[in-house]
């Protein structure tokens, strides 16, 4: 059981990361990553919604009719997103103001439905919750990495604190959405080329093994 949890965390955070390996959640990766603080809140919001949606879907998995399951999943996701929105407005009005319409856009994040459909639909509630949480954190991790690069080059700051001196000329492009494409693509490139190389060759061996046994 313990190794299963470890495996899920490793997959969600690194080897099968939703953003850099599954290329999911790209829309918000472009939209919110120009300030680290906004990115973190957005990431935690997604992690919260993914975890609880997966949990709820898993609890209901045996009674949801198979034909309407995606409708029910969307309903559950929308439920949690609106809940987050209301709670932020009531208890963290400043944060709610800063995030504006982004909170509502969590609904459109493909990772959440992906985890409901791929994992929660066929697993027990607690481990589904954990899987959703880890996927959300994997998403947060990559987005924060993008945001650090963008905020540093675009403003010369991190978390609003000045890191680079007055000599730094901010790159306006880094504040705009297109730069997220460059930064994200670079991150995917670097991780695929170097860090995930081992895993790739291991995968090829498995495929060869399958072929061999097939023959």
């Amino acid at each position: 059981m313990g190794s299963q949890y470890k495996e899920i965390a490793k997959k969600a955070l690194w080897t099968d990361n939703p953003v850099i390996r599954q290329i999911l959640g790209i829309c918000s990766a472009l939209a919110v990553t120009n300030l680290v603080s906004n990115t973190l809140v957005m990431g935690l919001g997604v992690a919260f919604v993914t975890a609880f949606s997966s949990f709820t879907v898993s609890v209901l998995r045996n009674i949801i009719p198979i034909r309407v399951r995606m409708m029910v999943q969307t309903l559950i996701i929308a439920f949690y997103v609106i809940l987050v929105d209301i709670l932020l407005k009531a208890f963290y009005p400043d944060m709610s103001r800063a995030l504006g319409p982004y909170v509502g856009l969590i609904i459109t994040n493909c990772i959440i439905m992906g985890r409901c459909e791929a994992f929660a639909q066929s697993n027990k509630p607690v481990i589904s919750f954990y899987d959703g949480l880890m996927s959300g954190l994997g998403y947060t991790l990559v987005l924060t990495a993008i945001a650090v690069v963008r905020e540093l080059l675009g403003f010369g700051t991190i978390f609003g604190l000045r890191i680079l001196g007055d000599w730094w000329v901010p790159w306006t492009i880094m504040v705009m959405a297109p730069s997220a494409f460059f930064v994200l693509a670079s991150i995917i490139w670097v991780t695929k080329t170097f860090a995930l190389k081992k895993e790739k060759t291991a995968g090829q061996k498995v495929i060869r093994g399958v072929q061999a046994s097939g023959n």
Partner: protein
Amino acid sequence: MKEKAWFNIVFMLVCTAVFTGILSGVYAYSRPIIQANTGVIGITAQMNALGISVPAGGETDLESYYKEIISEENINGMTVYKYESENGRLYYAIPFEGSGLWGKITGIIALDQDLKTVIGMDFISQNETPGLGGRIEEEWFKEQFRGITLFEEGDPIRFPASGSEGQVDAITGATATSTAVAGIINESIREARSKLGGGH
């Protein structure tokens, strides 16, 4: 199979009813808090625009203080907030609203009774690009408006361009938002001039 289709619909209806029911409950519970928050934001914006320092203390203090010094009035179909300043002059706080680059921008602009001088301005809500258009919320941008004299002819507020005068600087890299803000404020100043102008 026929029974199943019927069950699907009922299941969906029940599910929707349960989830929206819970949400309605949460919303009903937090609505007074949200409204209080929105109210505080609006009041604070008016006070900032009028140059009144916001008193420290709870929300109830703020609200009663606000009601003491500022009165709402409808003049010729326009809602304005009146405040008598320490130097005996009447200030108008005028709400403005219009489209920015991405969404609605709302705020308050305060004018002197002669409608020729800006006392100050503040935003209530905006959804501009964080770091670009979103910088209209920064102090340096808002403080530029304090005490400027409006142009009599043409646009009351202008950004300085080559060969023409202006009172406030636009935001570099956020031309669309800057232009929108100037447009929205100018529109409300024109309305104020036509509706409040003849009255005194």
